[in-house]
């Protein structure tokens, strides 16, 4: 057993691909152990190193450009009226 344990390995022992590991990292679903492992993996894997920056940039761009916009001003009032809530209170 010389190989270091891969904390991304599935229960069935299946070896995870770079993309599978990267996704877990990008989405903040990784455990501390997985993060440590991936950090050292990135040092020797150029595709992961490049994809990491790109994926994070896309995620940030999505959040900043696609989230804006408030609901129409009268929407809450209309909903409250329909459920019969006293809007004056």
């Amino acid at each position, binding site marked *: 057993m010389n190989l270091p344990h891969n904390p991304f390995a599935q229960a069935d022992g299946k070896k995870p*691909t*770079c*993309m*599978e590991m990267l*996704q877990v990292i990008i*989405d903040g*679903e990784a455990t501390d152990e997985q993060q440590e492992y991936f950090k050292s993996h990135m040092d020797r894997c150029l*595709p992961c190193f490049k*994809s990491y*920056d*790109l*994926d994070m*940039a*896309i*995620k940030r*761009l*999505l*959040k900043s*450009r*696609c*989230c*804006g*916009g*408030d*609901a*129409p001003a009268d*929407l*809450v009032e*209309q*909903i409250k009226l*329909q*459920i019969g*809530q006293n809007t004056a209170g």
Partner: protein
Amino acid sequence: MEEIVTRQNYSEKEKNDIFNNEFLPHINSMYNFGFRLTLDRDDAKDLVQDTYLKAYRFIESFQKGTNAKAWLFRILKNSFINDYRKKTKEPSKVDYQEVETYYNSEDVNRQITPDLRVESLKDMIGDEISNALNSLDVDFRTVIILCDLEGFKYEEMAKILDIPIGTVRSRLHRARNLLKEKLSEYAKSMGYKNTES
């Protein structure tokens, strides 16, 4: 996959408190979700309104203090599928079997879009990313909205969408590759424009 729900017994005051303090604060996220699904402001408004009315009607199956946002998103998603999608007769174009096969094949290690670079994203200050997202099939769009825009965890997404976590991952993976393909196209056309001028 129906969850076992313990019905709560709320007083009228409690109901209104939950509605105002736990449900209504999510109205902007809900509206954005509705808009991204229907791609129409009026339809989004109807969908959100309908969702809140349902949430009020079913409030006793909501447990106070639990994840109201995920609960509301799930109702909205179901309303969209059952009411809206049926009306507009837009069938699901995604063959999930195909997606799973794709994901499990050897191809996944291949770099799909080698020409998309972080630098080219910096030029996308307009509606490019929004248009790229909107152009995706609704099921792919949905996972990106839930994950990247709203920050839901895989487990929450699985509950909202009634699919296993493995499917959440694979659909997200496929969705992102499609989005990158779109963005590459934009980057390319912007590059052409820049060299012309």
